[in-house]
């Protein structure tokens, strides 16, 4: 029983990281059909900025805040320069464009920080573990879960309780009508890029704090996890991203626990195969595309 609880907790932690990742990606997709290959580079940049800020001996909360702000700025900049001109292009064109953007951002990171891995120093408390009722509760996992809950809550309020959120949802659902009603597509797009970037900034710190080190080529792993999560949940809606992320996390954790030791190495292959299999039965994802934001 305790073991199952422990697994559920682990799955929640991994899953909420993936859900956060997916959230940042899916928001942009919902307004411009962009599946952003360069998304992982946002996380990498955020981690590098965190390293710079930590070296400047800023306290942890300011480091995180700095990462979130700078990442949001970077995201808006990239969105404005590289993606906005493609607003009406077909999704495949956008996907390939983002591949080009990834190359450029990666080169910039190599140019500034070099190819060698850099270690992201975290406060000692982050790597501590609480033992309670037979459960192992690593602070890093708890932080991730709490951060994810905060972001989900905040995003829910912004999207559903503010005029601004209404505009975003309108632009996502019926872009033409929204424009006729006076919703500026540019403003909405930039706002969405800012939110997406802010989330990427936060996840970047969480992700690379757990991994330990970052290189300019560390972006592939988070990008893939985010892709799989949004496709699994259903492209372009918030619920899909959260469900997709949590299901992907659960799949990974439970497969790792259930597989015989000889097969553990194949977890990635099995997870991807399982996801493709799920898509065969639900091509629109678990939640479906039509659910709205």
């Amino acid at each position: 029983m305790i073991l199952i609880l422990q697994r559920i907790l682990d799955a929640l932690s991994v899953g909420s990281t993936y859900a956060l990742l997916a959230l940042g990606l899916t928001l942009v997709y919902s307004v411009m059909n962009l599946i952003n290959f360069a998304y992982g580079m946002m996380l990498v940049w955020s981690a590098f900025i965190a390293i710079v800020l930590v070296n400047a001996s800023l306290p942890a909360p300011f480091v995180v805040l700095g990462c979130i702000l700078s990442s949001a700025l970077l995201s808006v900049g990239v969105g404005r320069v590289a993606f906005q001109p493609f607003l009406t292009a077909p999704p495949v064109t956008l996907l390939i464009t983002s591949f080009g953007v990834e190359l450029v951002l990666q080169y910039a990171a190599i140019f500034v920080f070099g190819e060698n891995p850099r270690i992201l120093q975290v406060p000692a408390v982050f790597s501590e573990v609480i033992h309670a009722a037979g459960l192992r509760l690593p602070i890093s996992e708890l932080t991730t879960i709490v951060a994810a809950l905060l972001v989900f809550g905040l995003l829910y309020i912004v999207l559903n309780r503010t005029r601004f959120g209404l505009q975003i949802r309108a632009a996502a659902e019926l872009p033409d009508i929204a424009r006729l009603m006076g919703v500026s597509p540019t403003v909405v797009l930039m706002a969405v890029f800012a939110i997406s970037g802010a989330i990427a900034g936060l996840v970047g710190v969480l992700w690379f704090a757990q991994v330990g080190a970052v290189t300019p080529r560390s972006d592939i792993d988070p990008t893939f996890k985010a892709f799989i999560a949004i496709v699994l949940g259903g492209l372009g809606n918030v619920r899909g991203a959260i469900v997709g992320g949590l299901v992907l996390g659960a799949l990974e954790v439970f497969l790792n626990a259930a597989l015989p030791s000889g097969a553990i190495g194949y977890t990635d292959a099995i997870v991807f195969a399982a996801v493709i299999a799920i898509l065969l039965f639900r091509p629109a994802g678990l939640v479906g595309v039509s659910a709205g934001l």
Partner: protein
Amino acid sequence: MNAVVALHRDRPAGAAGLLVGLLGPLLLAALITGLAELVQTMTQGTISDIVLVFGINAIMVVGFQAFVGNTGIVSFGHVAFMALGAYAAGILSVPITLRAIELPALPAVLAQTELDVPLTLLLGGTAAALGALVAGIAILRLSGAAASIATLGLLVIVNNLLVQAHSITRGPQSLYGVAQSTTDGWVFGSLIVVVALSALLKWSSWGLRARAIRDDPVAAEASGVRRLPARLIPFMFSAFVTGVGGALYAQDLTAFSPDSFFVPQIVGVLVMAIIGGLGSISGALVGASAISILTEMLRRLESGVGLGPLNVQAPTGISELILGLLLIATLRWRPEGILGPLELEVDPRALFGAGSRTSARPEQPATGDVTSAPATAAERDDVRSRREP
């Protein structure tokens, strides 16, 4: 009136028309081969490595185009087929005595077999095509961006399997000692064969069905074209070609690991194919040539070039940056690439003045989609008339 060499969207009707459609890409492939040989002679073989890799890249782009051009699904998973081809051919090209030391747990069949170069190429291609058959049955049911992401999944799965299958692949360590038997002859010979096959596929009813599903799935299915087989045949062919490219690459490189075939390797082929034009084989060849020359120039710039009194040296990695920017710029201002859906065609009949384009097919200007414009009305008519009873 009719030129001997011209660019067209569509081939003329009939068997003679098929020849016209075949000769164009073949002429380009022959031209590229001739140029490569000329470069080899002029440089006395000092840059033969670069010429070989260029030829292999050209094969890979032709393979990539055969799937993406005909089905409109952008694949990020072709590197996986390259890996399958490279490992299948590579393992069997390690000398048997070395193989026994390097891979002691190899199954007997694999441990004892030694193959000639053409057989290793066929084996590499076949391994990749089988991989495509298994993966395609699942992936090709999806469409658009979901399908593209599923091909990324394929890449991860293959990479994971190669890393884990220690007894066959040496796992994450590199497989070394592969006999270096890739020569100009094999590379450019394969290129010409592959271009001819690719053109045959494009102008066959299989190619037509795939493009019909690409352009108007509902109308095509209503006309009796089944979606999965229509996509699966180009997918398998394309994987075969890419696998052959991988086999050649393995026997040129002689040592490689699963990491030699992962996301960074997608860049080159993708950029070449898109800049050349995803819609045509000629475009694939033009793109491969243009980008190869460009990257080679950039590479030299990275290692420093004397311009008169100046020594210009670009920072390392600049070629990736330029490729990224070029990709974005192409998609922004010329999304159909250099050639778009236009195919080079050679009409020998025009030499004798007798040639006339018998096709009544209207030519359409290219539109803005990466995966090229909707089919002409005539293409759709053809699908209807050729559908199976």
